[in-house]
């Protein structure tokens, strides 16, 4: 079976400075993969590369015939304008974009799916609430409902449980496990290593360069984590051209 995603000597970055450096390897269909690493390790950058928001500086990402738009992507919550006057129902309904697009109608079947998704994240009764009045946890539930509607085979979650309480995290993790059971490929950028060890079978430890990639228990060793921290702190503004790239 062909991998859901394959990175080939992938380098992503900003202004020639690599934020993800020489990443190689496949993500098999149905993998539940945690992407760990310190701040600035390139986790968000990697996701932006996969969904096509950032063009590679070198190397390639093979989406196995998918279009980048077919991948569901949960950006960090800070990138959303919470003051915008839109309610939970409409926010969730945007998950149907791929089906409805610019002008497509939203009929009875779609309404039912929207209501199911809202119920699945435990937000029934909140449909007409403005997103500005939601708590952080409720906002994240809303975004998960939108992901449910996107019905994608590859799902990227950028720090989905940041500043989220234990109950909400547990509820949302249930949804992640459901996706895993349905053999969808899920990649999640995470900081909580205990949570990773408990729920994610595979881990990619990034520190701009991949430190380790494989079974979570073998990746998240104290030596690897120390190495990741040291590699990340060494940003060189006057870096020379990468020899490996030549």
């Amino acid at each position: 079976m062909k991998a859901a995603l394959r990175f080939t000597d992938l380098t992503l970055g900003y202004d020639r400075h690599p934020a993800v450096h020489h990443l190689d390897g496949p993500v098999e269909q149905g993998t539940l993969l945690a992407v760990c690493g310190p701040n600035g390790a390139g986790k968000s950058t990697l996701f932006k590369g996969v969904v096509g928001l950032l063009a590679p500086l070198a190397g390639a990402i093979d989406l196995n015939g998918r279009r980048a738009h077919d991948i569901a992507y949960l950006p960090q919550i800070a990138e959303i304008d919470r003051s915008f006057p839109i309610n939970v129902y409409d926010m969730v309904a945007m998950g149907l974009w791929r089906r409805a697009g610019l002008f497509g109608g939203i009929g009875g079947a779609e309404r039912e799916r929207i209501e199911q998704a809202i119920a699945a994240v435990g937000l029934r009764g909140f449909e007409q609430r403005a997103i500005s009045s939601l708590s952080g946890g409720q906002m994240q539930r809303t975004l998960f409902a939108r992901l449910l509607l996107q019905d994608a085979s590859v799902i990227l979650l950028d720090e989905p449980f940041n500043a989220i309480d234990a109950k909400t995290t547990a509820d949302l993790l249930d949804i992640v496990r459901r996706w895993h059971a349905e053999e969808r490929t899920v990649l999640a950028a995470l900081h909580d290593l205990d949570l990773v060890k408990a729920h994610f079978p595979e881990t990619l430890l990034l520190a701009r360069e991949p430190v380790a990639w494989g079974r979570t228990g073998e990746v998240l060793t104290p030596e690897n984590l120390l190495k990741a921290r040291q590699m990340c702190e060494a940003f060189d503004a006057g870096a020379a051209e990468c020899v490996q790239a030549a």
Partner: protein
Amino acid sequence: MLYDAFVAPFAEFEFMRRALVGTFALALGAGPIGVFLMLRRMSLVGDAMAHAILPGAALGFLLSGLSLFAMTAGGLAAGFIIALAAGLVARATELKEDASLAAFFLISLALGVTIVSVKGTNIDLLHFLFGTVLALDDATLILIAAITSITLVALALIYRPLVLECVDPGYLRSVSRAGGPAHIAFLALVVINLVGGFHALGTLLAVGLMMLPAVAARFWARDITAMILIATIGGAFSGYAGLLLSFHTSVPSGPAIILVAGALYAGSILIGPVGGLLRQAFPGRHLEA
């Protein structure tokens, strides 16, 4: 008595009826545009673009006098060029888009006033800056109505990406490429509405009918659809009440319309149920948890 005060001016005088139809049409297009400008944090961009139209319209005037076609074409050209140039400067240099727009519109205003003064009188200059809402002829009314119709149809087409790009631009980019084109189409709509407004209210006031009802609507609704409706009705009401005010008190009509819109805004700050000052001062007893 009531009839004399509120209806008779429009029943008796054709120029009042024309002015009313013109401002209603303007409000219909400018309402939703203003709401989107506000929600996209581009309120000042509208202001800057309105000024940017002046030198173009003035060039049209210089070449062929007070011709509707020449001034419209000039205004449109100038508006599009400035919008594009400001975008390019912002993208190519470190300057933020609002800063580059501010630079462009100051230059445009000075240039426009100079060009008008070269050929025309001070009266002409006043017409350019503050409009001639009481002298709208058939051609101008048709132009304004056409602009409004185009605006409403185009907004319906780009509504979803426009909304989504405000709330969650990262998500929109991950599912669609429509964001960029929708933004450009939206800027084009801003320009054509300002050109329409320019004929009635002049370059300095055209943006008033766009922004004031929109920011007032923010105090009355939590939902974008309601906001658009309120802004449109507020704009139309400002047109009606402003024309009456000007009729009864001989205040110039354009400024009267904008003053009414300004009063609506001030009243909304005070008593608006969504974040108005009175509501903040007297929120009522708190509810059950």
